[in-house]
């Protein structure tokens, strides 16, 4: 049970405080309710490029990192399709430095041309390192375009193409900032050796004077129900054939979310999962195979991806996977198998909650979903999942008309 206090400033900034006196450190986490899904389809990759620019100087402070490092702190950030999260860990005695830095870049960036020019290049190198100069690096780009026809999850956070990143203009940067990076579109979480009183005073002092922006009304195009199975062939210079399949699933707040999560764990999460045991060990059709899901806020995808053992044909591999799926749909799962994945989840939650950093991330994320206290209800929701519910969920999701398949062939 993670205890916390919650309050809101007049400008709409939500603030959450979790005290832990066993540590000398504190974490200051600012989550902005903007992700790659909020981008203009002609200007993709922007939320992530923007994350880089947030380190390029704010209106009163030329370099973000330096004063933080001087105060013994370190920081990082990440962008997903749903959100952008910035965090720093710092000795608790120096926490005001983090408030000073984070509030200044929420107030306004410096909008330096040099920073934009350099970060465009840095992100292009990141794009090359992870998505071009890497075997199968383009697989997700292709799969997203195949599975999503309408919803902005059809592009990756890095962007649909290098050109979009290369063409980013300063005016785009400014528009994006003043639209999304406003206090009323953000959640501030402070964890560690701090008191609520102290955080209240610091938040009022540093974030209080920042003006609210126009409320952001998210109105994203929804993905229509898929009625026909889709397939795509790819041939590339990779050593092994790969099979990748996805099925549409519900969103993060869907009532079957927890059942879906456990179901993917039973199917392909680790060394006792069905796919691992049957298709890697017993039948030796795949050399690696996993089943997982997106866990995105809007409806996501259940994924099965695996690399084929040399000499096995794609159709044999595909049939073997689909046979396992049929078993899940048509046979009731033994109770102990469900209990196993619930126990695994309990363990995972406990290990995750060990650090004040993870607690800060989780509190911010669940508050974004609607209520930070959802964090404390997760385990109970998992414990309520039954074999019947998993079977029903499997029958709903694993319909052939709901499936997208990428056959990724080795040229050699």
């Amino acid at each position: 049970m993670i205890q916390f206090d919650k309050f809101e400033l007049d400008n709409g900034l939500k603030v959450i405080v979790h005290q832990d006196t066993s540590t000398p450190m504190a974490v200051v986490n600012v989550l902005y309710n903007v992700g790659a899904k909020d981008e203009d389809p002609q200007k993709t990759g922007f939320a992530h490029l923007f994350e880089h620019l947030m380190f390029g100087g704010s209106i009163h402070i030329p370099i973000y990192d330096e004063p933080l490092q001087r105060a013994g702190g370190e920081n990082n950030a990440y962008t997903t399709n749903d959100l952008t999260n910035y965090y720093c860990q710092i000795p608790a005695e120096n926490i005001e430095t983090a408030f000073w830095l984070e509030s200044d870049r929420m107030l306004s960036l410096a909008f330096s041309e040099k920073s934009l020019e350099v970060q465009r290049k840095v992100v292009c190198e990141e794009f090359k390192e992870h998505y071009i100069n890497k075997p199968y690096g383009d697989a997700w780009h292709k799969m997203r375009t195949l599975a999503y026809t309408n919803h902005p999850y059809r592009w990756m956070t890095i962007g649909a193409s290098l050109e979009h990143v290369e063409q980013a203009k300063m005016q785009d940067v400014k528009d994006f900032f003043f639209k999304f990076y406003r206090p009323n579109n953000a959640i501030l979480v402070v964890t560690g050796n701090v008191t609520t009183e102290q955080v209240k005073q610091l938040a009022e002092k540093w974030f209080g004077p920042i003006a609210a922006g126009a409320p952001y009304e998210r109105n994203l195009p929804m993905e229509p129900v898929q009625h026909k199975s889709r397939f795509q062939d790819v041939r590339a210079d990779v050593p092994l054939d790969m099979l990748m399949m996805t099925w549409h699933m519900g969103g993060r707040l869907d009532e079957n979310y927890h059942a879906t999560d456990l179901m993917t764990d039973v199917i392909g999460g680790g060394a006792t999962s069905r796919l691992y045991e049957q298709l890697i060990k017993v039948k030796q059709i795949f050399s690696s195979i996993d089943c997982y899901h997106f866990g995105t806020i809007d409806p996501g995808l259940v994924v099965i991806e695996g690399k084929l053992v040399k000499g096995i044909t794609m159709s044999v591999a595909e049939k073997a996977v689909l046979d396992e799926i049929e078993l899940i749909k048509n046979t009731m799962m033994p109770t102990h198998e469900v209990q196993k994945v619930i126990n695994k989840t309990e363990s995972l939650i406990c290990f995750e909650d060990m650090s004040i950093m993870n607690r800060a991330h989780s509190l911010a994320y669940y508050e974004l979903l609607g209520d930070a206290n959802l964090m404390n209800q997760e385990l109970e929701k998992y414990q309520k999942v039954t074999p019947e519910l998993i079977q029903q969920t499997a029958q709903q999701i694993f319909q052939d008309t709901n499936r997208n398949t990428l056959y990724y062939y080795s040229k050699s």
Partner: protein
Amino acid sequence: MALDRQMAPVIKDAIDFDIKLKPYQHFVLDNQVEVYTYEGGAEPVMLMDMVFFAGNSYEDKNWVAAATNFLLKNGTTKKSAFEINEAFEFYGAHLSRNCYNETATIALHCLTKYFKEVIPVVSELISEANFPEKELQIYQQNLIQRLSLNLKKSDFIANRFIDEYLFGIDHPYGKYAMQEDYKNVTLADLTAFYDTYYKHGKCIIFMAGKFPSDMQELLNKHIGQLPLNKKVIANVTHPIVSAAQKQYSVVNDASSVQGSIRIARHFPNRHHPDFAPTQVLNNIFGGFFGSRLMRNIREDKGYTYGIHSYIQNHVQQCAWMISTDAGKDVCKPTMEEVYKEMKILREELVSEDELKLVKNYVLGGLLGDLDGPFQIIARWKTYILNDLTDAYFYNTIDVVKSIQPEQLKTLAEQYLKPEDFYELVVY
């Protein structure tokens, strides 16, 4: 009063922090296996990290140590691989294993309440593993496939080659496995290695987290009666055979859009008096986001997504390494800038201001690194396995707090000479 946002809040310098490494508890099992523990944390979880002297330094044939470490979880006289995995996973426990140069580990992460359920299985793995033939065959087949995939990656190739240049292909720090090595390993190799280095091997245990009240009894019952620590493990030494040539350029994939750059030189181990002060110099050079390499090559020129320098974590002999992936057309300028930064460190004194920032960053980071029971025991594990005590910890802090620009310049003159570095680009 208006808020002055130009003015940084007052900070307490990390050099004024009183950083302490909390002590471990220690006990010895009936079979003389030493156990180091640190109890703490709010969550009901724990870690048991068993260290065996079974790294690749002890193998006579390439890849035997790693394969034994991996496959000891894939079958015992009583259980199949699936049943073993099930015995851990049912309780949400996770058993990982890793093979290094001197040591190999078996680490159990579990909920405190299930320790008593899973500890007997750990015991079974180190006394009754039986290496089924089919498990070895599947593992070989899948590793050969994975290797073919990794050999497409320039960074994978670069990491292998640079270690080979530094230490030689027959040295534990420099060798790597190819397809043939995977194929050549037999069940007899695994069984023999297991018998000597696990079943009758030398073991040290590190534990952290929240413990069940009968933890010591459980450990003694299940681990303390095994035939461990009976024989003295013979010291093995391997000569370092460094490459004569220093500069390399390798084309792995003609269509590559980036090059993987590695620049490295030998460096002494932790017992050398230069080790601690050079960590400070390394931080200034390329050891963190605000380092000179990062600011110049990423933040000013945009040649790369990231560039780092670090001193390798070896027991006997280390290397000082600079590592980055840069755009194909800017690999050469990237390397020139690296050498330029070395020259500046050799010829100019680091400013007091920059040095103070780095000192604060290093010590603040240390405070954060010691936050939590797993982190504390990990630090102790490193010290104990390297024959160090907490004196090393406090000495390092003193060095960081007191080091002066002149000393850094002297170190740079000694260790940042371009002619000492091996240099490699893989496209």
